[in-house]
């Protein structure tokens, strides 16, 4: 049972840097050679597409997808997968057991293809990164300037508060002076009223 051959659909995710450096056909040949080295027979191996991934894998945002249909046994698949994860341009593999190979796929066979890999994504991101850096630096400088202004304003407020305190400390004396003046006025008025009552009393006694 272990040596029984099955049909597998295999999808290989290739590193775009390696594909750009070596070329698609060379990387495809490497995958084919690795599979055949472990005893698999490759029926179809073709470019499925070059596209951006739904999430980053090892810092990669795009990948070249290579689709294959092979006849192999379980041990072959496990050994090939182990080697691919250790060496070469393949960073992710999926083997799915299938009942048969579709005729459309068989007609395609092992194809040579040209892949145009866009490399502007990383550059744009770098520019954005630089822009964000510059923006951050500007924001920091602006914050520093604001803080300096605030500190200056705070110093000015402190100085004005001190002046105000000094004025307040002067004001109580004035208030005290006012109070004493008012008290004097009251005392004089009391004296006046006392004198008036005395005069009234004396005039009344005289009339009697």
């Amino acid at each position, binding site marked *: 049972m272990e040596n029984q051959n099955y049909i597998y659909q295999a999808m290989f995710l290739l590193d775009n840097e390696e594909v750009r450096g070596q070329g698609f056909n060379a990387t495809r040949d490497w995958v084919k050679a690795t599979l055949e080295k472990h005893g698999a027979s490759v029926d179809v191996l073709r470019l499925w597409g070059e596209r951006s*991934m739904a999430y980053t894998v090892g810092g990669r945002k795009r990948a070249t997808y290579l689709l294959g249909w092979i006849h192999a046994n379980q041990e072959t698949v496990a050994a090939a997968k182990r080697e691919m994860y250790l060496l070469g341009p393949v960073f992710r593999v999926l083997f*799915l057991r299938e009942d048969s190979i579709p005729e459309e796929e068989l007609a395609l066979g092992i194809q040579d293809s040209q892949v145009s890999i866009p490399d502007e994504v990383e550059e744009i991101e770098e520019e954005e990164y630089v822009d964000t850096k510059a923006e951050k630096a500007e924001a920091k400088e602006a914050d520093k300037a604001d803080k300096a202004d605030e500190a200056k304003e705070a110093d000015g407020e402190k100085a004005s508060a001190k002046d105000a305190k000094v004025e307040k400390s002067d004001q109580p004396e004035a208030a005290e002076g006012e109070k004493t003046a008012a008290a004097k006025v009251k005392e004089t008025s009391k004296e006046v009223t006392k004198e008036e009552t005395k005069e009234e009393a004396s005039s009344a006694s005289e009339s009697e």
Partner: protein
Amino acid sequence: MSQKSKHPHDFDCKDIESLQRYINGQGRIYSATRSGLNARQQRQLKRAVKNARFLALLPYGL
């Protein structure tokens, strides 16, 4: 009279457009009651979506 099903007979992990009909904005698979699939189709859908996620064709979550 056999009615033609609106659902695909076999879900393929490479057919992202048809799989995206059965996942929500967060990338989660709709329940069978919402997707309207029978138990076998729902299992096939689950397997296909999980394989597509492994191949980075669909997100695990947003």
